[in-house]
């Protein structure tokens, strides 16, 4: 079995701070503290997000790619979380292969009374690059930010637009590649 963070408390705090930064600045690519090794096929950043945000009170859904025996064992051991079979029942979803991911509308968008009880998606992508690609706007973005993501299907961006329209409900997305993350919270709109 693989070890988690070298220093479970400080590394998780560092990673949490990075996730806050990423959420506060949608589209910005931010490096996070990662464990030395991650279970196949998860990238270091995805393992780091799980170790930081998932615990015994949260439910997690894994897609077919991310749901290897190794990854399941890792999450259950280090996070103590409950794994669920239905995307709609999960607080956090780990998507290993975005090409065949379920529509964003399949995940829990929360309710109007408590929109914070919505799902957060960790989507593992091939690469993230700032300054090119999709134009993003919304809270946390002064003028505009461009984010180029390889590995996302075209339908994802349509789904993100519908998700944005649900505000205050909607899911939040954290894209992760290698040791980096970028956030696409529900408040962010995609221009093209």
């Amino acid at each position, binding site marked *: 079995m693989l*070890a988690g963070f070298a220093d479970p408390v400080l590394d998780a705090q560092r990673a949490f701070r990075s996730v806050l930064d990423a959420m506060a600045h949608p589209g910005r690519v931010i490096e996070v503290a990662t464990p030395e090794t991650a279970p196949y096929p998860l990238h270091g950043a995805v393992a780091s997000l799980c170790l930081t945000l998932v615990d015994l009170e949260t439910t997690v859904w894994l897609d077919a790619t991310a749901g290897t025996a190794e990854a399941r064992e890792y999450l259950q051991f280090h996070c103590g979380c409950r794994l669920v079979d239905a995307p709609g029942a999960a607080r956090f979803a780990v998507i290993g292969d975005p090409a065949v991911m379920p529509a964003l509308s399949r995940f829990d968008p929360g309710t109007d009374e408590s929109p914070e009880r919505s799902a957060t998606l960790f989507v593992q992508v091939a690469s993230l690059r700032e300054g090119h690609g999709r134009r993003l706007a919304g809270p946390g973005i002064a003028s505009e930010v461009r984010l180029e993501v390889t590995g996302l299907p075209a339908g994802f961006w349509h789904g993100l637009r519908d998700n944005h329209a649900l505000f205050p409900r909607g899911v939040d997305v954290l894209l992760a590649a290698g040791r980096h993350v970028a956030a696409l919270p529900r408040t962010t709109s995609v221009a093209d």
Partner: protein
Amino acid sequence: MAAESGARRRWMSVLAQASGAEVERAWRALTERPAYRVVRKPEVGLVMVRGRAGGSGAPFNLGEMTVTRCTVDLPSGIAGHAYVAGRDPRHAELAAVFDALLQDPLHAAQLEERVIAPLEAGQQERRRQVAARSAPTRVEFFTLVRGDD
């Protein structure tokens, strides 16, 4: 499997109830000490101990106790876990290593004989002494049945 987990439960219990010094001595007495990797470093926490009134009544919370847990794995891939009483990280780490080693049929019989059995005998002896000290203070209550009415 049931017998296997029963045996494991027994040695985990013996290791958890032994003192840190006893486990350390047993570890130093090993002829070959295997290399191991710490998967989860010793962490101290609290667990709620629950009891049942009279052993079979409604469950109640007796109180919290300090527990240290640790997980290690051996080069062979066998993982060992330990939850030990108190806040001694070294005790938890070594108990986890012993748990891993005892799951390996190559070492199990020898460790059982040299480590677990002596620790268990010592614990039983201590328990017997405490019971022997308190036995004379035992009071039996009984009621005489009256023959009339």
